């Protein structure tokens, strides 16, 4: 692996450095299909320019070209964008935007297991992309809220109609948002946090 010498690696800019008082971090996951606005949402609320962590995986596959029938292994890079919000001198919140396919989730140990909760970001033009994600989160016991990113050319449905279509439990919040706007993205995160708080009060968070 070609590795640049440590002197040339740009670290965080001075204004992006965490204070020494930072004791602990928590994470939330934003999950949704390709192009639904995960990275835009991360970027609109993050105090740092969104960063990317990559994981390289091998994919057993059959070569397209004639290579005498032998199996080839190809390396694929899966990227995950993330951002950061310092909620206090001691506590840091990280937001990860991850692809909806569960087969990628294990690449980062404990991505969902350790998360406080998740936002399922949906696009009404491709609602069905999010069906599988919600089922997986339910099976893993990860609490989530649904945020509908309102694209100008996307069909608009009443939220109650979407709730029925998504077969959401009555208490799971569903809200519309415009992830390009910081206030709107923040409202989505606040909705998730209030939901988690309610679950904690009623003792149903497991």
């Amino acid at each position, binding site marked *: 692996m070609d590795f640049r010498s440590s002197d040339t690696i740009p670290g965080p800019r001075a204004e992006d450095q965490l204070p020494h008082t930072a004791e602990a*971090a928590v994470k939330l996951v934003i999950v949704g299909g390709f192009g639904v606005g995960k990275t835009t949402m991360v970027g609109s609320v993050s105090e740092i320019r969104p960063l990317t962590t990559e994981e390289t995986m091998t994919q057993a596959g059959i070569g397209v070209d004639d290579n005498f029938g032998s199996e080839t292994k190809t390396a694929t890079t899966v990227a995950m964008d993330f951002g950061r919000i310092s*909620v206090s001198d001691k*506590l840091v919140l990280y937001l990860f935007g991850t692809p909806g396919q569960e087969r990628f989730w294990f690449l980062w140990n404990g991505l969902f297991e350790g998360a406080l909760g998740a936002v399922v970001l949906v696009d009404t033009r491709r609602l069905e992309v999010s*069906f599988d994600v919600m089922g997986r989160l339910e099976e893993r016991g990860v609490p989530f809220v649904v945020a509908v990113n309102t694209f100008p050319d996307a069909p608009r449905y009443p939220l109650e109609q979407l709730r029925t279509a998504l077969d959401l439990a009555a208490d799971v919040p569903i809200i519309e948002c415009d992830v390009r706007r*910081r206030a709107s993205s923040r409202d989505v995160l606040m909705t998730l946090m209030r939901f988690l*708080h309610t679950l904690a009060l009623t003792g149903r968070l497991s």
Partner: protein
Amino acid sequence: MTPPQRQRRHPEREPDPAPRQEGEGRNPERLFVIGEGNDGAADIDLVTLIVGRAEAPGSLPPEQAAVIRLCETPLSGAELSAYLQLPFSVVSVLLTELLAAGLVQARAPIVRQALPDRSLLEAVMHGLQKL
């Protein structure tokens, strides 16, 4: 106009869903696999905060020296992966070695628990309100 309707998953009865593209049938593997018995690597979370404890000894490999240099202030595993442009699994291995050598310190993340800390949730909400 009505939106498409979600059908709940029934894992025990469900046949394999949508036909997969060639080569997608099997789960992918990490290219960099952390060896069995390499205890500790799995404990490094994306949001474990790492802080340097000492000057990097001159004998240290460049990747590890870079970690120590970057961690003058607390930095998460995910941020290290991003700045070093290394897969997170590789960063985990580097950190495990540095932790064992006492050259960095790890501040463990707070994870979702059966008995959640309401004051923690409130602290996050308070922080978001300031945005």
